[in-house]
């Protein structure tokens, strides 16, 4: 039972409550840095680290932090992790850091992270909070990667900088410009909602059929 509970917390973030496709949170990095797969993944990993780290700390100290100053405490914790991620990226992968620019410090303002602290980590035991954070962060990475991959393939004819098509491929430049981000996100959200609707209809049909056969 316990096992199922934490697995459930992990899985919900990836699909059912996906932070981007279902909750539509964290749109700023989502649209801004997904012009190539590598940028999207780097941004995703930085967010992953910050979210999991802060959820762990917030949940561990949830009984020590007075309710009146909880938001300030969450922000201090989040900002510390963001600074650590910022310097680490700058030291290890200066090229990627240059591309992401101001969007790494802006992780502090990502409502996905503060939202998870307020809605989940500050109310549940550490183990569940970490599972929830892992799931949500994985969902965010998956969403960023799918947007980044689509935009890089169409806009540059490449994936992770490796050319996929021959010389004759004419890159669809608009896809790596800002409008491409909106277009791709729109299409993906459309697909996600359509799929969700079909699934609900299917489940309703199954329920009807079961009732009829009884």
């Amino acid at each position: 039972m316990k096992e199922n509970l934490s697995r459930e917390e992990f899985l919900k973030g990836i699909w059912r409550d996906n932070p981007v496709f279902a909750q539509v949170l964290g749109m700023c990095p989502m649209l801004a840095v997904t012009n190539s797969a590598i940028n999207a993944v780097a941004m995703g990993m930085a967010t992953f680290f910050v979210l999991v780290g802060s959820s762990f700390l917030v949940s561990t100290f949830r009984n020590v932090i007075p309710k009146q100053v909880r938001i300030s405490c969450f922000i201090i914790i989040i900002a510390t992790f963001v600074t650590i991620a910022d310097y680490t990226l700058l030291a290890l992968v200066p090229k990627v850091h240059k591309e992401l620019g101001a969007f790494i410090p802006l992780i502090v303002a990502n409502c996905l992270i503060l939202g998870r602290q307020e809605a989940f980590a500050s109310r549940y035991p550490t183990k569940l909070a970490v599972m929830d954070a892992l799931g949500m962060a994985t969902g965010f990475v998956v969403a960023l990667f799918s947007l980044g991959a689509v935009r890089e393939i169409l806009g540059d004819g490449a994936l992770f900088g490796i050319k996929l098509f021959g010389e004759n491929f004419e890159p669809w430049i608009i896809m790596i410009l800002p409008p491409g981000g909106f277009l791709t996100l729109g299409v993906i959200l459309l697909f996600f909602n359509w799929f969700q609707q079909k699934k609900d209809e299917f489940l309703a049909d199954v329920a009807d059929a079961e009732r009829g056969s009884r």
Partner: protein
Amino acid sequence: MNAPAATASPSSLRLVMTLAIAGLLSGIAIIGIYESTLPTITANKARELREAVFKVLPGVTQMQALVYRDDALVVVPEPDKDEPVVYGGYDDAGQFIGYAVPAAGPGFQDTIALLYGYQPAEQRVVGMEVLESRETPGLGDKIYKDMDFVGEFKALTIEPEIVAVKKGTKTADNQVDAITGATISAKAVVRIINEAHAEWSDRYPAPGSEPGLEASEPADTGGEQ
């Protein structure tokens, strides 16, 4: 805070202490990560700069920073921040080859920062490398991705000034073929170099009397002057 506190409400002192401790721990963590990554970050930056200088000045294997103080170019191991600086490039034997000049100016979308190599003896630009830019991907970014354009700056007369002309119409030594579809970015690069040259050209000493190479590089911090 003057209102009678609800029974369960913690004291102000406790609230203040919680935030103070959180801030203190956060500060310690940040100082720790800053101190531990600083050497790598500085080394990365220095390496990037060296590579760029060696790229824009062919044949250069040693470099030193030069600043303009009291009407002369002087060697300074560690220039002040925000002080305009050029890099003198020298070959294996310590013979002066040329200056690598950092310059920046507005491009199509944001500031373009670049470095160009200048040989005072022939008054020629011998190389150009874009260090930072946010030009449109696929169009404006050709100022560093299009090797034909970058190659234009390998032998370019800078007097009276560089002129960007429509692609394929280059006729003189001081002309650069612009990029089709990215005229503004290409012209910006030319303008940035011209402006930087106008600023620096009077400051260079006569060819042949450039500052010599100081003994060793970073290790030496003995203040000249």
